[in-house]
């Protein structure tokens, strides 16, 4: 096992805002690594440093043994980035996007044509191939974006919040694609706001908050610290009455149920722990800016694969 991504003492500020503080991080070759954190934690900045878009103020970062500042071009040859805002050309069709990127990836014309056909089929975009990207849904754009990243299969793929803003179906489609990519031996570095996504995809997870890694381990280790599902009690209008964490055992669940005796309770649900629950467990405090909708979203599609 060798590290393919290494950050050592990396700091970055924009003006007076300190985004990253002496960050250390390593990712093993051929694994899926998830960087979990809320908006503004510094996730995108780390991706931008690793993909050579911004230089760190202090410390060093390397990808596949090449320094992101000194050997920038060598790093660029070995990565692909799928950013937060889908980096596709809206004026062109899906097919034209792939053709252009094929040419820019140095593929021969015939190879570009065959790869374009393959990728359109694999990402279920064949029917929309000749439609302008402007008319695509969010999920289709992400799939096209990812397809472009995979015209050549680079050793390292960066995915910056690949499923933010997608519906459950599109999210699960993307997860399947990312898993298949990982099975092919590509190192995947992804950022996410969803604990469930990290749990579903990653071999290792680091929790980022305020530019610092506050926890790191396997999803199982992280979940062990967070606990099991959360038992939630709602009234007839669907408003949340109470939440009780469980530890994943039958006895624990029974104890949790015993604590609930509200007579006006209409329904009881079990939800997976949210990012906020993770933060509560590892830092002892809630997320600085808790977004209720995001918590809802994570709880909503808690299908365990």
């Amino acid at each position, binding site marked *: 096992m060798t590290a393919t991504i290494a950050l050592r003492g990396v700091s970055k500020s924009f003006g007076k805002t300190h985004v990253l503080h002496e960050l250390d991080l390593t990712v093993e*070759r*051929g*694994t899926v690594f998830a960087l979990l954190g809320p908006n503004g934690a510094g996730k995108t900045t780390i991706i*931008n440093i690793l*993909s*050579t*878009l*911004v230089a760190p103020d202090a410390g060093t970062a390397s990808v596949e043994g090449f320094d992101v500042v000194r050997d920038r*071009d060598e790093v*660029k*040859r*070995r*990565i*692909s*980035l799928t*950013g*937060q*805002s*889908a*980096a*596709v*050309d*809206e*004026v*062109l069709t899906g097919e*034209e996007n792939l053709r*252009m990127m094929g*040419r*820019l*990836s*140095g593929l021969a014309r015939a190879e570009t044509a065959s790869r374009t056909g393959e990728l359109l089929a694999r990402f279920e975009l064949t029917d929309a191939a000749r439609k*302008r990207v402007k008319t695509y849904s969010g999920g289709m754009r992400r799939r096209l974006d990812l397809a*472009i990243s995979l015209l*050549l*299969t*680079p*050793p390292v793929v960066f995915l910056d919040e690949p499923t933010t803003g997608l519906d459950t179906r599109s999210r699960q489609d993307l997860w399947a694609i990312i898993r298949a990519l990982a*099975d*092919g*031996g*590509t*190192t995947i570095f992804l950022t996410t706001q969803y604990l469930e996504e990290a749990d579903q995809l990653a071999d290792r997870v680091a929790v980022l908050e305020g530019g610092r890694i506050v926890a790191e381990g396997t999803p199982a280790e992280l979940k062990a610290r967070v606990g099991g599902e959360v038992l939630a009690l709602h009234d007839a209008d669907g408003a949340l009455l109470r939440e009780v964490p469980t530890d994943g055992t039958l006895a624990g669940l029974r104890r949790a149920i015993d604590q609930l005796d509200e007579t006006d309770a209409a329904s009881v649900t079990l939800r997976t722990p949210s990012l906020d629950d993770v933060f509560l467990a590892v830092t002892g405090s809630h997320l600085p800016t808790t977004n209720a909708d995001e918590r809802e979203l994570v709880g909503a599609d808690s299908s365990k694969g």
Partner: protein
Amino acid sequence: MTTATTTTARPKLSALTSTGAFIHRSYLHTLRTPDALVMAIALPTILMVLFTFVFGGAFDPSGGYVDYVVPGIILLCAGFGASSIAVDVAGDMATGIIDRFRTMPLRASTVITGNVIVTVLRNLVTTAIVIAVALALGFRPSAGPLEWFGVFLLVTGYILAITYLFAAVGLASSSPEAANGYGFILLFVPYISSAFVPIETMPDWLQPIAQANPLTPIIETIRGLLMGTDFGTQGWWAIGWIALILGFAIVWSTWLFARRSGRR
């Protein structure tokens, strides 16, 4: 866990290959926005009809005003055609696509080069159409083949310089809407020159400004070449200004492109 055996490093791409791909991209963009092309032809044509038939009679009752106004209309048309690149570039910078190019082993700034080349070619086509319309309206230049070739070189140089300048304006703008606004201001520059009326007819305080306007020597040179009038040293001033504007625009846009790295 599988080891990385199926992955490939990308080849480094030459600036020529990436420029070629970006030329194709901008060409497709031009085809997809026919309204911009129609406007680029329609506006100067309307202006020429307006200046020739509405104002022309007052400026020159003998009907010779069309011969005077054509060089100015050509530059106005070039400026208008070039201004769309500012909106284009600002739009590109607002999406993640430029960042994607930057993370690939190619010279990302060639996306600007490709766009400039296509815009210049498109502008040359619209300029040819404008000259054809002028001939239909009674424009009768005395220029021979050599003079026409000189006009072609000068107009191409001017279009290249103004297009690059508008590309830089696009890079400097925070949004496509802002780029559109800045572009609009630049389009007024030709009015304070010898484009539409002789400088001598302007108030005393305005004359030095119109005289110093970089467009004045360019217009005087084109007019001289087309109509056979004497333009003295204006030709050298024209070439100097075009070189200066182009040089400034290239340096400015290169600096802006690098500065906006990784920040959206």
